[in-house]
């Protein structure tokens, strides 16, 4: 028993064995992901680029008025989110909305709305290929620990934790599908099942529904902490947003 317990405690994936979900893609889906002319998320990037450059209706500055060309100013920003902004832990979507409310004096875009996903994809895309931050800041310690607790927390009627599938049983099959390691390297991403682009938090809520737990709300502190832990878990891996998944 003691031995088993010790194994469980160390069940995290060794750094050199980590792999992006892209390695599990079928050849045809991989071709879709890797060709911008075929990748449907390219349409969200076009929309995001237009929104970045266009001033909002109240003549407030556009994103580009302050940040300039996203290709230079945003080239590694997405690797560092979620991070604390003021007193609050903020993911990339939250940061974009905070800018929109405080600097552009516009109502925040709803979570998972098309404009928010488009701008987030556009910003995240600039960091494609860049290594994810190691989130070593002491300010993140408490949130990281809370996110880690959530990852190992059993939940729902099926009573599973994230770790039981994605740390301990990755590579095995769940209902005919290979269980991925769950590294959030490609978000926001185009999921064929969604027929559209969605955020990491939407994906996390999917998983919580699947274990018949009541999912946390989009934008909640819990989901953002879990997002932070997952990003830390994928530290050093290259971002590949927007990815494509089945």
């Amino acid at each position, binding site marked *: 028993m003691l031995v088993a317990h010790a194994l469980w405690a160390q069940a995290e994936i060794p750094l050199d064995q980590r792999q992006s979900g892209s390695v599990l893609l079928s050849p045809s889906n991989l071709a879709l992901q890797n060709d911008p*002319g*075929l990748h*449907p998320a*390219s*349409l*969200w990037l*076009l*929309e995001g680029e237009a929104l970045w450059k266009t001033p909002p209706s109240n003549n407030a500055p556009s994103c580009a008025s302050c940040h300039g060309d996203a290709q230079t100013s945003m080239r590694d920003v997405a690797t560092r989110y979620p991070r604390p902004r003021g007193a609050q832990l903020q993911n990339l979507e939250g940061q974009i909305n905070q800018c929109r409310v405080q600097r552009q004096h516009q109502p925040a875009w709803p979570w998972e709305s*098309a404009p928010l996903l488009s701008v987030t994809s556009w910003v995240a895309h600039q960091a494609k290929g860049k290594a994810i931050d190691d989130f070593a800041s002491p300010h993140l310690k408490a949130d990281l620990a809370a996110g880690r607790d959530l990852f190992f927390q059993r939940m729902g009627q099926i009573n599973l934790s994230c770790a039981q599938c994605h740390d301990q049983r990755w590579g095995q099959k769940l209902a005919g599908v290979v269980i991925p390691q769950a590294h959030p390297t490609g978000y926001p991403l185009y999921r*064929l099942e969604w*027929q*559209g682009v969605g955020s990491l938090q939407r994906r996390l809520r999917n998983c919580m529904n699947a274990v018949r737990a009541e999912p946390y709300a989009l934008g909640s502190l819990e989901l953002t902490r879990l997002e932070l832990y997952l990003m830390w878990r994928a530290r050093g891996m290259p971002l590949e947003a927007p990815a494509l998944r089945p």
Partner: protein
Amino acid sequence: MAQARTLITVPAQAKRGELVLVRALIQHPMENGFRHDENGRRIARDMIQSFRCSFNGKEVFRADLQGGIAANPLMQFTLLAQESGTLEFLWEGDNNFRAQAKAQLLVT
């Protein structure tokens, strides 16, 4: 949204007699009218019904789109390059949906 986002991929140049691969991607939900939302209400049908491509004013490709086609449909076809000109793309569908795009092809 004023116009749906479209993405056309055509090689900028082609040799005379060469087969040219044309790809046209468009952002559209392709809602078939049979699905229900989480409150049990039927989601209204919203489909692209037809896609046409013309080259220098002459129709070269046409497709009717129906219920089984996924969101953000991609059209991919080949043309035989004979002269330089403009490719014009037109998507039409429910609720007066209409989207247009253009691409240039230079044949040498």
